[in-house]
């Protein structure tokens, strides 16, 4: 949906459009008659509605540019992951990316919830479950030598990323998902949308927990 008051420039443009809109209605009503005014009102309103709907479909999402936080030798990595957060591939990726830096890792686990519960604001269980997954995952990351902090985020992964970026100001984002075919996030195009929306490097890590578990079993 287009928000005409998102910035001063857009508000000014909206004002000019309003002037044109009401001027056309008033001129039609005063020069031709009140029914002409009504017709112009209906026609312009319908045209405006069609424009808004079309523009909303084609409008590219705005890129959010997080502000840089921390010192030059710091690397702030935002990790968005749910069940795959403890995967070995993700741990390796974080290690590689923070090589040579004083790294700050924030793991955000979205509190996945059903639509019905989300709209009913019944999020307690979802947040509790997410917190358990997060705690276990942070513990696994710590075992792998990565000292990260974590928080439970919004049920919508993109929103969770945006919330975290506002306060954390990451240099890059790592999105960890299950492989194609088993990942709802990939099905919904979360990675592509995140790349369009956020002006920071985004790495997509596929963690196949089943394969990793098999590898662990084989080693044992």
């Amino acid at each position, binding site marked *: 949906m287009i928000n005409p*008051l*998102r910035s*001063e420039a857009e*508000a*000014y443009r*909206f004002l000019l459009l309003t002037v044109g809109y009401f001027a056309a*209605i008033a001129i039609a009503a005063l020069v031709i008659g009140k029914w002409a005014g009504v017709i112009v009102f209906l026609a312009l309103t319908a045209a405006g509605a069609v424009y808004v709907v079309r523009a909303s479909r084609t409008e590219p999402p*705005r890129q959010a540019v997080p502000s840089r936080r921390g010192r030059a030798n710091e690397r702030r990595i935002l990790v968005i992951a749910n069940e795959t957060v403890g995967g070995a591939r993700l741990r390796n990726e974080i290690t590689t990316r923070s090589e040579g830096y*004083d790294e*700050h890792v924030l793991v955000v686990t979205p509190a996945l919830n059903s639509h019905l519960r989300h709209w009913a604001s019944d999020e307690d269980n979802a947040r509790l479950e997410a917190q358990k997954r997060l705690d276990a995952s942070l513990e696994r990351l710590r075992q792998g030598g990565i000292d990260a902090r974590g928080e439970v985020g919004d049920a919508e992964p993109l929103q969770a990323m945006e919330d975290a970026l506002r306060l954390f100001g990451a240099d890059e984002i790592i999105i960890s998902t299950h492989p194609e075919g088993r990942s709802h996030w990939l099905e919904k195009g979360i990675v592509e949308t995140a790349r369009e929306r956020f002006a920071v490097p985004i790495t997509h890590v596929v963690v196949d927990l089943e394969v990793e578990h098999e590898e662990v079993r084989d080693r044992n």
Partner: protein
Amino acid sequence: MSAHAEAHHGPPIANQSSRVDAPTLGMLLFIASEIMLFGSFFTIYFFARVVAGPSEWPPPPFELPVFVAGVNTAILLTSSFTMHWSLQAIKRGNRAGLQAGLVLTVAMGLTFLITQILEYSRVGFSPQDGAFGSTFYGLTGLHGAHVFVGLTILTFATIRAFRGHFTAAEHRGVEISGIYWHFVDVMWIVVYTTVYIL
């Protein structure tokens, strides 16, 4: 590899769940509530007009100063232009342009408000003169109150502009007051067209 968790001191960090930054979101929500407030006043106005029937509006012997209000409208619209100009100026790092734009905007806003008060004293009817008088003063008075609020915000922005608080990179105080000022102008266009013209 060195690593450590971040320590946080002080009150809990505020949660934010929006694509719009918090100050702008606050202004947008405020404007949304204002639109509802104006909507209720317009509902009353149109209700009174419909109940009055297809007879002449405004009901005789009342007459509205359409020309003076038209000039006032032009002044207010020009003030929006200077507001926009001032923001464009600071975006290019032109502080003098920002200051001049804001001073002109405040001056024109003040002119609008004083003209409206003078118009009230000469219009020849009062809020007690039936539904017409009540709705006229209700709508224009509500808008006038918003102009006053807008002028107050703009005055603070102007003071800050002269103190050098705004730069090409940081000028949110002007941006947000500009959004509000344009909103006030949009509402005046609606009020002027419906009350004075149609």
